[in-house]
């Protein structure tokens, strides 16, 4: 069984919570798109955390794949070129291929150099998006596309789109849990815990690190495609390293070592941003401060405060 009973219970509980969110959110003064956004960032962060929390590798460039798929989705459904049911997979495939290529190039570098390389590639994408006016709309972003119909299902209304994203969200939870339960996931953890010992157990470390990079980037791509459809808009900031930083922030605050950590982080991020921004536009200050506190004192994040230190 790739999922244990406990896994099914917890994922079921979280799924049930999210399933009723469209009813709860308006009651607490929020809105359905906020819930959709939390799920989308959840997909981004949970996929990203396969690399950070699971394998122990920090990337500041995953927004490149997030934004790439976002732009690709927009461009593909612009002027009805492709139906949505094809556009999304193609966009995600684009992110997958880009990650496979870039990953192969940079995975041999360690630690800080690797992180800086991811920033370099992310910024390259950012600048291409902001300069290539004719294709991407430049700094103003890409407009003129709208989510319409997916396999006959109308996803224009907020509620419908929420449940559309919910499907992908559930699949993400199940996939990531299964992956980390499997021997592949355990190998990634070994690499995280002691890369030399992993090597000396006969593990092809580079191959697995590349795998983690590509898989996490593919989820970033999926999230990006959905985000572009949420906003009906794609813009260069989606590719910026600060957006990559948001995923890092969510994973760290929520808890890198806990399965639901990044999701908790995503929820906190979106809520804090939305709640605080009703009082002040300067929500980045408390968010940044909280992040600093967690980096210094609670490296295992919020969920880490509750869990015993027993790996993943």
């Amino acid at each position, binding site marked *: 069984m*790739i999922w244990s009973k406990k896994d099914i219970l917890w994922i079921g509980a979280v799924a049930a919570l999210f399933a009723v969110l469209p009813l709860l959110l308006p009651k607490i003064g929020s809105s359905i798109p906020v819930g959709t956004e939390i799920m989308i960032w959840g997909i981004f962060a949970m996929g990203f955390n396969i690399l950070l929390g699971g394998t122990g590798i920090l990337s500041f460039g995953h927004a490149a794949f997030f934004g790439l798929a976002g732009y690709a989705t927009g461009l593909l459904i612009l002027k009805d070129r492709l139906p949505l049911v094809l556009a999304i997979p193609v966009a995600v495939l684009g992110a997958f291929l880009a990650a496979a290529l870039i990953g192969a190039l940079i995975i041999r570098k360690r630690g800080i150099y690797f992180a800086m390389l991811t920033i370099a590639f992310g910024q390259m994408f950012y600048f291409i998006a902001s300069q290539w006016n004719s294709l991407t709309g430049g700094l103003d972003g890409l407009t003129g596309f709208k989510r319409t119909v997916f396999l006959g299902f109308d996803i224009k209304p907020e509620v419908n789109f929420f449940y559309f994203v919910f499907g992908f969200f559930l699949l993400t939870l199940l996939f990531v849990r299964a992956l980390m339960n499997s021997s592949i996931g355990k*190998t990634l953890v070994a690499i995280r*815990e002691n890369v*030399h*010992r992993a090597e000396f*157990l006969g*593990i092809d470390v580079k191959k697995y690190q590349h795998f983690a990079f590509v898989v996490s980037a593919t989820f970033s791509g999926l999230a990006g495609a959905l985000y572009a459809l949420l906003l009906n808009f794609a813009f260069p900031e989606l590719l910026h390293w600060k957006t990559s930083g948001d995923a890092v922030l969510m994973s760290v605050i929520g808890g890198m070592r806990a399965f639901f950590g990044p999701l908790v982080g995503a929820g906190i991020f979106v809520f804090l941003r939305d709640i605080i921004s009703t009082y002040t536009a300067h929500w980045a200050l408390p968010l940044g401060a909280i992040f600093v506190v967690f980096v210094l004192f609670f490296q295992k994040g919020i969920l880490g405060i509750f869990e015993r230190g*027993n*790996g993943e």
Partner: protein
Amino acid sequence: MNRHLVCKNLVKAFGGFRAVNDVSLVVPKDEIRAIIGPNGAGKSTLFNLLTGFFPPTSGQILYKDKDITNEPAYRRVKRGFSRSFQTPKIFPELSVRQNVYLALQAYYSRSFEINIFKFNSLDLPGKTEDLLRMFALARHGDQLAGSLSHGDQRILEICMVMALEPAVLLLDEPTSGMSEVETNKTIDLLMKTYEEDPITMVIIEHDMRVVRRISHHITVLHQGALIAEGTYADIEADDTVQKAYFGEVR
């Protein structure tokens, strides 16, 4: 097979400093070879070269007559090399049980790379318990590996290293920091597994009682070079060796 593990004229230079200076060894199959020498003799560096931790500046390494000089470490492990380190390399934030499990998983992965589903038929958890019992680690099963005593961490590492069912076992000061009781237990265990299933072993050791008890043949290194080779009796009587250790002949 008389030339199981061979190195020819191995040199490892760091800038101008030659940590390993033209060392040649021939280790026959199933021999227990001890590598001794004063501190800084280049023993661990030699190990690093043999196991692929880093490449040599020049020279050759052959395993079963195949040139593996530039092969990455993990490939050598897949061929049957297994090694422990001077400071045990284990997974500190995982439990002892998870540590051993990972070693077994890595061993069995060689046949089933990414086939996740075949794993359930192997009963890895059962095999993990067997190994834990064999190395007297069962009572520590749920403890975090990093919280074990130094001696127990060494034993854990040896357990993991043996889980790989190696053909060539390289141990870097396996009894360092152990009490006499722990040392005897560890050597007993190594000898027992050797008797049941002989393998080639290369051991860096400082403890001469261990060397005398366990080794078939000894290689002495000093300042990166090989200065003597022979049985324990040969080495004991060798003036060059005496001089290397004590600066004079005693």
